[in-house]
């Protein structure tokens, strides 16, 4: 569950963004849309705690993350927020499975191998577990990103243009996985997108102007 109030942010010497408040319950989905330059990615980074807003508050499961120190914020993010990016980033020297284990180790201090294997099975990529991420197709990579985002049972799942580099078939599959898994793991799902293919699938939308 995540709520935001009165979030303002400005890059140095640029116009100030005022972001609309949002409220998203566990298991439900919000779509954030808007044209380029309206601050979609900025908003997502603020929600993820990667950028510090000038004012406002973000409450995730009762914790106001804006007031956390940087180091606490890092830990909180690792434990409570999962992020899926448009382009999948991985640690290229580690295998698929190790990438997932790393996510749990960084957040909780221990490797959760059983969970990693379970997620890979759910996402139908368990055969790829011991490959390097660069050996996977883009669709498979995106599924590994989703698995990684869900590794620590996050309260909030943020997805930044998760479908825009995928073809129709893969985009549909990824979207289904995101919504069904966020329901299953009771995470609030926030998708930032300008992908017209998915706009009409969600009733709960915020448009940045």
């Amino acid at each position, binding site marked *: 569950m995540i709520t935001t109030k009165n979030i303002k942010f400005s890059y140095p010497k640029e116009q100030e963004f005022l972001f609309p408040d949002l409220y998203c319950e566990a298991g439900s989905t919000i779509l954030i849309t808007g044209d380029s330059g309206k601050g979609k990615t900025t908003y997502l980074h603020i929600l993820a705690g990667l950028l510090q807003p000038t004012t406002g508050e973000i409450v995730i499961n009762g914790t106001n993350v804006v007031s956390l120190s940087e180091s606490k914020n890092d*830990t909180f993010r*690792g434990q409570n927020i999962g992020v899926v990016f448009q382009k999948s980033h991985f640690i290229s020297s580690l295998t698929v499975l190790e990438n997932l284990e790393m996510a749990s180790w*960084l957040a909780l201090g221990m490797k959760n191998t059983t969970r990693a294997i379970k997620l890979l099975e759910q996402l139908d990529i368990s055969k790829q577990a011991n490959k390097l991420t660069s050996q996977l197709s883009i669709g498979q990579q995106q599924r590994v990103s989703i698995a990684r985002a869900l590794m620590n049972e996050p309260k909030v799942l943020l997805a930044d243009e998760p479908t825009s580099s995928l073809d129709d078939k893969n985009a549909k599959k990824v979207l289904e996985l995101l919504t069904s898994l966020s329901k299953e793991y009771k995470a609030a799902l926030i998708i930032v997108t300008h992908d017209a293919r998915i706009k009409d699938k969600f009733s709960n939308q915020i448009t940045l102007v």
Partner: protein
Amino acid sequence: MITKLAWRNIWFKPLNTILSVILLTSSVAIITVLVLLEKQFEEKFSSNIDGVDLVLGAQGSPLQLILSSVYQVDAPTGNISYDSAKVWMQHPFVKKAIPLAFGDNYRGFKILGTTPDYLEKYGAKLSEGKLFEKNFEVVVGSEIAQKLSLKLGDAFFGSHGDALEGEVHDQYAYKVVGIAKQTGKVVDNLILCTIPSVWQMHDDHEEENPAHGEEGHVHSDTERELTIEESGMEITAVLLQFRNKMGIIMWPRIIAQNTKMQAASPAIEVNRLFSLFGVGIEALRYLAYGIMLISGISIFIALFNTLKERKDEFALLRVNGAKRMQLLKLVMIESLLLCVVGFVFGTILGRVALVLISNASEEDFKLGFNPYEFIWEKEGILFLLTITVGVVAALIPAIKAYNLNISKTLANA
């Protein structure tokens, strides 16, 4: 986990890593060899001159006299008359005088005529048998006994001079009566006998070029045993130990002015030798430090380049909950792992090189080195130096990773 990631990362770019490791390995290896060589060389040289204040011998290069008579590595300067040497040997200043007469060799190992004092000076006790008493009885150094597998009671013929291919003296056979214990000094590689053995061996074939610089003796028809009391004989050198230290300073000049002999100080000559080597060792040392500097730069460039490529990975680690400090640690550990690997390989390679050097010098100079010795102090400093190179090389990349702007990196990706 961070260490594991660091380890994976350095082997993900094997070429960069191998270059850095090779550079580090070679510099560490060179320094290790130098450190070990220098110490063991000095130890060997110094331990052999213990108890030798001056060496009395034929005129010529004093360094040559010392090298030949104390270290058995060079040709002797020539022979001196035993009668005139005795005048000095019996001087009240002298505490102990050990005469040396160079004779033949057996399969490249020198047969040295001397007195039992020689063994005593090197602290060489007998492990088997007894001391040489009669002519042609020999005590064999431990290394020789081992290498040529000589046993008590074995007999052999010597070849003339110090050349392996010298003419074989088959008139008299040497007989092994004793085997000395290991001392780590030159005596391990010598075959010792009485001085009259050397005289007698060469006594009746002076027409066939007798011992070094030795003038022909009166031909004797009788096969009599020569003794140390013989007059008009020659020896090669005398090792002198003084009771009165004044002699050490005075004698070289007195002897040079009044006799055809010279007296050389091993301490001075060895110092001269070290200072000659010193220049070369110093140059090698600077070369090694230079290579280490280059390896530091190589690590820096490798880390800096991968940092550019791996910005996304670092941002991702932060998104997954890594703290700034953990990224700094990651870069540092990568660099330190390279350094530790380089140091370990360098230490091993240095010792392998020392084994090779040791084999060569053993063959040429009967001078072996021990590769298994660890000089903790100096090698510890070398380790710290290597680590410092790693830390300095990683400093800027690590700080860059620490200060990475995650949002900007991800937005631009």
